[in-house]
């Protein structure tokens, strides 16, 4: 008898987590399609999503727990795997973890991938219950998250932003591919961006390379890597000072632009409440920013308040950007001054400041322009100022979360009509600035916590703006930990799917840090380069064999923005796990009981998963992963819609409301165009850093952004005449998908995917032929090899490399030897990290090695 069924589930080949339907015939997966009933992907998938069959059935997958027999760890060293039983494996993990837990739980180092996000909630809950603050998403965090998501959170209460594809008329992307490639909401964005293109939205893409978004743009603006802030600041200068365009109403009501700033750069505060003051032009005196009916808040002028000469923050901003002329920016960015002026004028004009539109019977501001930043502008030491400067473009014309403007991904959700859940909205925090309604990580973008002597591996406490720090795997981690007297060292690492050898920086540095960790347990579906450092490998169920009640949560991370529908999908096994594979979430819960931290875990789960009423976990009761999933779903969607309902229906959807999408007009929150908080932060952090003997540069803590050079801009040796950068390929997610032979094959067909893209004229000048193998070398002597692809699509000073390939593990026969491992060129140390948010610089000066 043949069986034939379609099972609704969720893709797990990138954090995009599109909704899928799996066709299973006689227990064999024969097709993956998108699920048209879900807003996430709307029934259409990228190439990776449909190729997942080959990941599921990879004969190189791990099927049994493996124990290392060779005590020597090193790149290319065979660990001498021995098959062991799950009991044996869990006994050992339990013994190691118990020792650490009794001793100092912070010695547990948790690392996870950004490819498959299913583990985020279970891992975070496990870490919290265990008591370790040392957890990171290897690579992903350092490369893509620290700046862009921070600024997204501060201004849009969301992880990322897109143009309002349905209404925007001019979008300027600064190193972003939203809607044209991989990443957050990729498949839905592809549809919306194509519709916008057909509708006539003008797209300008600032990027050193003309692929993905820039290939589809109306205008490509080639730029030198890491100089986005210079360009954006010059544009702000032109808009504010030459054109005199700004949205006074928005700035006065929705930002801290009217806040009065004293000579010390700080807010002038109300003596009684400590609240910042603003100048009320109607009343003719200063009032607290939150004074009701404070209608005529001054953005200009200078006032004597509380014994000091005070000026609105907006005045300081306008004055500050005067120094950033288009000519200055041209020298730094290579973008011609005339282009900068034109773009600024187009942006300011197209913003139609003052215009409104009626949607669903509500009159709303209409600002059809958006400045979008992501991986390109963010992947640098100066990511904070890059993203801050670009965001100011949206802010000065009031194009943030209004019709046509830059939209955060779903900062507001008023829940399913029947249950009112999930429910969240941003609220006003200290000094009237916005606190996000929900967030991806425990660490909120605002309020900024007080810097303190760091007690975590990442030194995060001292850098409250950062999420992840390079010291998790840096060459100078030991030195820095010693400086700050870190009272412990990582003793056990629990890794989920991350291949940090490839994803962080040069593999030698990462290898050294891993080799120092006495015991590493890793959940994996195949053995990778990372496994060469693991002591125990646990065979994980792949995303097609596992259960997850929240594959697309939180909505600010990865749910389609703009009007449309809400969808909460489920992930469920489409085939049972083969061999002895077990889902890591289940294994973690088994460990919780073995470690005796069930009470802590259940308490964390109640809060983290927002479990409610009868669905809350009792502290003393053991629950299986499935039960917890069931309770989470019931908490949100009612007792009748538990796991069984979701397994059958796959997804629940309901319409979005105008108040949710264009929430800015409806909520009374402000965002900072002047980062006064940096002054206080600097004042407190600097002495701690200095005491530990760390160099400190105040320039990174100015309340207004400037362009700060990347280390690559400071290389003096002229022999290094190229800037290297990597970009995300639509065909791959991190290094994970390189082993999928369908994707590998497509990559080999693609002119760029596995090659080193070099400007054709530059290449010819160097006497290079298309396809010629070359060695790239960094000023630090790091080298990678690959084939050049001579192309007109790259800035003449640059080489662009796709993704994160270049595997060498014999256990990955498809991936092995393919593509280029760009990250091997990157230094991972304090000098290449940001002294304000710890972001790692991912551009590097290079030469073609002789």
């Amino acid at each position, binding site marked *: 008898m043949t069986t034939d069924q379609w099972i609704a589930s969720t893709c797990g080949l990138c954090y995009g987590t599109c909704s899928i339907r799996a066709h299973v015939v006689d227990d064999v997966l024969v097709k993956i399609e998108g699920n048209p009933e879900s807003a996430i992907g709307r029934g259409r998938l990228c190439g990776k999503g449909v190729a997942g069959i080959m990941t599921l059935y990879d004969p190189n997958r791990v099927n049994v727990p493996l124990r290392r027999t060779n005590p020597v760890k090193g790149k290319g060293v065979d660990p001498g795997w021995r098959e062991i039983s799950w009991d044996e494996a869990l006994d050992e993990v339990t013994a190691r973890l118990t020792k650490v837990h009794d001793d100092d739980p912070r010695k547990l180092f948790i690392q996870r991938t950004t490819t498959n996000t299913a583990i985020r909630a279970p891992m975070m809950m496990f870490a919290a219950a265990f008591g370790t603050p040392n957890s990171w998403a290897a690579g992903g965090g350092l490369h893509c998250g620290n700046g862009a998501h921070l600024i997204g959170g501060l201004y849009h209460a969301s992880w990322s932003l897109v143009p309002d594809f349905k209404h925007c008329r001019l979008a300027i992307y600064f190193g972003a591919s939203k809607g044209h490639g991989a990443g957050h909401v990729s498949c839905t964005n592809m549809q919306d961006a194509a519709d916008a293109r057909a509708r006539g939205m003008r797209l300008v893409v600032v990027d050193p390379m003309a692929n993905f978004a820039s290939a589809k743009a109306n205008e490509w603006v080639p730029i030198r890597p890491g100089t986005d802030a210079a360009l954006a600041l010059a544009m702000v200068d032109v808009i504010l000072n030459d054109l005199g365009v700004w949205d006074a109403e928005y700035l006065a009501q929705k930002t801290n632009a009217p806040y009065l700033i004293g000579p010390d750069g700080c807010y002038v505060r109300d003596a009684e409440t400590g609240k910042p003051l603003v100048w009320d032009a109607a009343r003719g005196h200063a009032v607290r920013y939150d004074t009701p009916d404070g209608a005529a808040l001054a953005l200009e002028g200078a006032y004597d308040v509380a014994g000091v000469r005070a000026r609105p923050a907006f005045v300081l901003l306008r004055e500050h950007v005067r120094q950033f002329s288009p000519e200055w920016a041209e020298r730094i960015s290579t973008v011609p001054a005339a282009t900068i002026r034109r773009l600024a004028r187009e942006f300011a004009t197209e913003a139609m400041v003052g215009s409104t539109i009626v949607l669903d019977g509500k009159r709303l501001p209409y600002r059809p322009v958006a400045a979008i930043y992501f991986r390109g502008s963010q992947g640098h030491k100066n990511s904070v100022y890059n993203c801050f400067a670009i965001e100011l473009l949206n802010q000065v014309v009031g194009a943030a979360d209004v019709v046509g403007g830059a939209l955060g991904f779903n900062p507001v959700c008023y829940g399913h009509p029947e249950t009112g859940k999930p429910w969240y909205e941003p609220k006003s925090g200290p000094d009237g600035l916005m606190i996000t309604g929900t967030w991806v990580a425990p660490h909120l973008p605002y309020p900024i916590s007080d810097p303190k002597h760091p007690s975590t591996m990442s030194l995060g406490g001292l850098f409250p703006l950062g999420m992840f720090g390079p010291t998790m795997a840096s060459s100078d981690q030991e030195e820095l930990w010693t400086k700050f007297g870190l009272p412990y060292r990582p003793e056990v690492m629990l890794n989920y799917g991350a291949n940090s050898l490839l994803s962080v920086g040069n593999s030698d540095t990462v290898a050294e840090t891993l080799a120092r960790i006495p015991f590493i347990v890793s959940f994996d579906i195949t053995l990778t380069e990372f496994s060469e450092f693991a002591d125990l490998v646990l065979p994980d169920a792949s995303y097609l064999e596992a259960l997850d009640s929240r594959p697309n949560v939180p909505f600010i991370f990865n749910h389609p923005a703009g009007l449309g529908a809400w969808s909460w999908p489920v992930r469920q096994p489409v085939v049972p796990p083969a061999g002895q594979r077990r889902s890591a979430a289940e294994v973690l819960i088994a460990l919780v009981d073995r470690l005796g931290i069930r009470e802590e875990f259940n308490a964390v789960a109640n809060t983290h998963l927002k479990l409610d009423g009868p669905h809350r976990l009792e502290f003393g009761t053991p629950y299986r992963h499935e039960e917890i999933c069931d309770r989470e779903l019931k908490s949100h969607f009612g007792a009748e819609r538990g796991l069984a309902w979701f397994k059958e229906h796959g997804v629940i959807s309901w319409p979005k409301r105008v108040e949710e999408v264009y929430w800015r007009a409806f909520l009374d929150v402000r965002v900072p165009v002047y980062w006064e908080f940096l002054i206080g932060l600097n004042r407190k952090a600097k002495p701690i850093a200095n005491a530990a003997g760390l160099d400190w540069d105040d320039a990174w803590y100015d309340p207004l952004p400037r362009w700060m050079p990347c280390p690559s801009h400071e290389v003096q040796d002229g022999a290094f005449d190229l800037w290297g950068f990597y970009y995300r390929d639509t065909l791959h997610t991190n290094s994970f998908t390189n082993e999928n*032979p369908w994707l*590998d*094959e497509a990559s*080999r*067909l*693609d*002119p760029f995917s596995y090659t080193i893209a070099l400007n054709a004229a530059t290449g010819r000048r160097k006497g290079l032929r298309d396809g010629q193998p070359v060695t790239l070398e960094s000023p630090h002597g790091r080298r990678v090899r690959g084939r050049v692809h001579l192309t007109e699509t790259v800035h003449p000073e640059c080489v662009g490399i796709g993704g994160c390939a270049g595997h060498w593990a014999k256990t990955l*026969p*498809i991936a*092995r*030897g*393919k593509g280029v491992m760009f990250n091997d060129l990157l230094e991972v140390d304090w000098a290449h990290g940001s002294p304000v948010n710890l972001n790692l610089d991912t551009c590097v000066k290079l030469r073609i090695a002789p």
Partner: protein
Amino acid sequence: MARSATSDRLLADLGATFRPQRQWVEGRGIWLIVGHFLSGVGAGTWLFSLWLGYRPGLGLALAAVALSGLAHLAFLGRGARFWKMYRARTSWIARGFVGMTLFLPGAALYVLRPGGALGGLGLALATAGAVVLIVYKGNVYAASKGVPFWNSPVLPILYATYAIRGGLALLLVALPLGGRGLDAHGVGFLELWVAVSAAVMLGFYLGVMRSTNLAAQRSVAELVRGRAAPAFYLGTVGVGLVVPILVGAAGFAGPLSQVVLAAVGATSLAGDFFAKYAIAKAGVYIPLMPAGRGPAAPAA
């Protein structure tokens, strides 16, 4: 190191602007060239042997065409289905198959039983088949709209010329095997004449191709300075044209020995083979380009 499933070369070919044709020349594809070569030579030999009344040549012709059939079978992906190739309304391959189907039994009949009605029928069938075999193969290439280098009315004429010359050449080779009643020098001069015309045809063909579209130009480039150049210069031009023409011309000065003439025949045969080989090898497909856009770089 484990090789990935698809050969890198295939993917590189697909990615190239001008994707090289390999099906009909590389791997088992070489059998097709062999097959085409043998059928042309065989058919040519048949006609000349008849004309010159040289019976051993008829046997040789039969053998060549029979071997050609085997070579074709070795080439086909599904040789066991060869008998299905009779859709001759539009297909030149089917016509060639019909030609072979006429020739082989006909020639066998005539060689074994020259006299009588049966012999006469065999002769008629075989001769008709031989004509088809001479004509069809150039047309097989010429019908290939995907390969502009072949897709030309000149090619059938060129290949027919080569087939005729091949027939003569095989006879020259066969002469030392005891060919009484045949004027070796006459054949030699004929061979010289056909060699010259083949050279002229080839030059004309390449000239036409150089001025056609970019893919054809690219093929010419492949022939004169690319992938097919060694086979072209050494085989087609050197061994196949220059040597026979020089030697043949020397024949005007004085009589050539049978062995020399046989050598001329052999080099001509090799030249015939390499002409087909090089022209096949130089084939590239029309590049897939957006409408109205030509490839950026035509040169090799």
